[in-house]
């Protein structure tokens, strides 16, 4: 099935953003009718490569050949004409339009006759190819499940006659049964002779679906390996390589204090089994897991942003009223979300106002704000979190991503909560600011706060946690002391826990 000559070949591709080298002389190829898996840690360069293929970024150097001819994509439509299409992670369907409308949306070759009946008829074969022949093409997209929408997206790309389909973490947001559906569509596309690039964090999918796998690490590529010739452990080793010790602060010798946060049998509809956790003063607990693993959802639930189906949260011995962010904050729980721009920061307000926003009660007397108290508090936070104090008066939106993240996390230290929950502490943050954030988290833990963070980056979890909990598809897989785990075990637990490897 996978004949020798590559259909798509990329050679010595490099791409830099400012001083950061996202891709460094990367080679990559896909053969006719092949499923090529692309794996690597966060920041390894996978999404940069995908964006280059989608025509969204131009490479700084290197060449791309499609079916033996040199090609250059300088826009999304050009790569689409060449037959390369990306199944978007963030779905790009229009919910209020019909399925058929979405399949032919923006298709300029379709001509003027867009009567619903005509489009529906034309859409049928493409729906059949993705296993959705039972759907009425005139139905609205908003009624469909996430997996069905993703398959509609695939059908849309098939309607454009895509030869190379790129799936960018297609199963990240899906439940198990829906994942099977996507997988079987990938297989049937392969039988039709199409080539597939399958980007994923889930290593079980690599072995289930792919013929070969390419591993990216720190912006460099390994030569592709046939999945029949590699073990799971060897694959994990290739992904991790050496680690950056200097990125992480010393853990210090302090003994953890009394229990500040106790989560027992917590269950929400995002979790498949109940979660229990114990966090002590001065301790950093890392919840490791991919998107959809339940690690971030556990934090959201503790912070009062999710409805609890069962279970309880206790802070410093006192029960916290569920389902209310305000009640959680009053009990001493701070929460910094993974989506900073959405609910972590006030971009159009000054940094000072951001820093004092969770502690307005502390900087006001009888409802009157004290500018001095505000300045003192924001000054103190800025000093601890190394935020440029000259920029306290500027709009938060004018800061770099790293400084915005310091504001989003640091603002919680103003009211000195007992527990700080941080979802993805370093998302969208460059390496320098990452190291700073790690050392700040360690130092505020040293002041007696309990810290729980969720992350999909195993290096980060292992680098700063005292206790590590692994999550996989809505379930807590394990809780271990840092000494009792390593990157191999943890990576296995968050990608593929139910095998009998070691």
């Amino acid at each position, binding site marked *: 099935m996978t004949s020798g000559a590559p259909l798509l070949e990329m050679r010595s591709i490099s791409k830099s953003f400012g001083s950061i080298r996202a891709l460094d002389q990367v080679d990559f190829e896909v053969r006719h009718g092949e499923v090529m898996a692309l794996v690597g840690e966060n920041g390894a360069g996978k999404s940069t490569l995908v964006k280059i293929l989608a025509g969204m970024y131009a490479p700084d150097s290197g060449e791309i050949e499609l079916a033996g001819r040199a090609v250059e994509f300088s826009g999304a439509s050009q790569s689409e004409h060449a037959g390369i299409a990306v199944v978007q992670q963030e779905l790009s369907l229009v919910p209020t339009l019909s399925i058929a409308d979405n399949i032919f949306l923006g298709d300029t070759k379709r001509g003027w006759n867009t009567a619903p009946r005509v489009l529906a008829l034309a859409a049928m074969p493409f729906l059949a190819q993705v296993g959705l022949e039972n759907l009425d093409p005139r139905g609205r997209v908003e009624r469909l499940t996430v997996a069905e929408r993703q398959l509609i997206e695939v059908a849309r790309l098939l309607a454009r006659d895509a030869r190379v389909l790129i799936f960018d973490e297609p199963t990240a947001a899906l439940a198990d049964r829906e994942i099977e559906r996507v997988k079987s569509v990938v297989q049937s596309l392969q039988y039709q002779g199409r080539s597939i690039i399958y980007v994923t964090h889930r290593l079980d999918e690599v072995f289930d679906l792919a013929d070969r796998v390419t591993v990216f690490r720190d912006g460099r590529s390994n030569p592709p390996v046939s999945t029949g010739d590699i073990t799971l452990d060897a694959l994990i080793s290739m992904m991790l390589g050496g680690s950056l010790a200097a990125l992480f602060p010393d853990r210090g010798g302090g003994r953890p204090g009394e229990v500040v946060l106790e989560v027992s049998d917590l269950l929400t509809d995002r979790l498949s089994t109940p979660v229990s956790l114990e966090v002590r003063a001065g301790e950093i607990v890392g919840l490791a897991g991919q998107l959809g693993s339940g690690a971030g959802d556990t934090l959201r639930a503790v912070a009062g942003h999710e409805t609890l189906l069962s279970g309880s949260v206790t802070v410093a011995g006192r029960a916290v009223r569920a389902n209310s962010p305000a009640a959680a904050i009053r009990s001493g729980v701070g929460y910094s979300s993974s989506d900073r721009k*959405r609910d972590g920061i006030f*971009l*159009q307000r000054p940094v000072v106002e951001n820093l004092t*926003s969770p502690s307005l009660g502390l900087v006001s007397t009888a409802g*009157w*704000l004290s500018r001095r108290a505000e300045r003192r508090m*924001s000054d103190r936070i800025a000093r601890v979190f190394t935020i440029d104090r*000259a920029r*306290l008066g500027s709009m938060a939106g004018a800061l770099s991503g790293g400084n915005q993240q310091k504001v989003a996390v640091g603002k919680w230290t103003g009211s000195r909560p007992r527990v700080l929950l941080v979802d993805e502490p370093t998302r969208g943050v460059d390496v320098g600011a990452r190291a700073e954030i790690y050392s700040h988290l360690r130092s505020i833990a040293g002041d007696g706060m309990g810290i729980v963070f969720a992350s999909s980056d195993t290096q980060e979890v292992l680098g700063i946690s005292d206790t590590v909990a692994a999550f996989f598809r809505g379930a807590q897989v394990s809780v271990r002391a840092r000494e009792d785990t390593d990157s191999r075990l943890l990576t296995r637990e968050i990608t593929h826990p139910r095998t009998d490897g070691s």
Partner: protein
Amino acid sequence: MTGSGRVPTGGARPRSMIVPLAVVGALVVLGVIGWVTTPEFITYRNFLNIIRAAALIGIIAVTMTLITIAGSFFSLSVSQTAAMSAIGFAAFMSWGWPVWSAVLAVILLASVVGVLQGGAVALGGNPIVVTLAVGAVLFGLAAWLTDNKTVRTGTYAAEWIGTSRPLGIPTQTWAFVLIALLTAVMLTRTRFGREVTLVGANRWAAATVGIRPGRIAVYVFWVSALGAALAGIFTAAQFSQGRLDHFDGADIDAIAAILVGGAAIQGGEGSALRTAVGAVFIAGLQNLMVLRGFSYGVRVFFVGLAILVSVSAYTLLRNRRRLA
């Protein structure tokens, strides 16, 4: 304010002066145009006319500014709330109630209207739709109960509220200045004002730091209804009567004042004092156009134009600032 321990504010300060300068600049331009073209525009008498007219629009607009800053756009029921208050006040006076209890009753009535609207918005209602609907309900109710007739107070007991001039300045104007200052202080110096601003800047981030956007919505709509009630009481007292059409066009004038004042339509930014200057601008513009003998249609045209120009100008300014 030049203490040495003061944290420098970076480049933000000079840039944030652009909007206030633009608001005052618009007023100055209007004054110059009036002065050049129309001799009777710049007279003490006409100045009193303008600030009296500005006062009513201003009270409504300044209190509505809280709604805009909180991210709930505008209230489209303020003219009906004000008319209802004027009619209610006239009716209560005509029943022989003492002035203070008539005032209190009107305030209670308006509070119910405001809190109900705020509650509907807190539950997720679109502010424009909610206030449009409430406005229609109030108007219909008032027309029905009064049978479309003017309600006379039948007494001059409350006339002083609308006509007296302490220190030569009308009571409405005193109230306007006082309310503008109080609202400005509330917005910039109190915890409540900060919470209003933060909810408007990003309601999800506000909820995450423990501010309850729903509660803020109830308060801002309440304050706006109180402002409208006050305008209604002043008018009913001044003319010793309440009529349905007293406040025709007040919605659009108040919104124009807010927008000329440069509040961000999507919330999170705005100033009570700038809205106050905007109200004076709109009142001055209306006054000038009446003096020039412009017809009603032409006047509406120019108010609409003022909204268009200011919204476009501030949007361009803000976009440039964001890129800078």
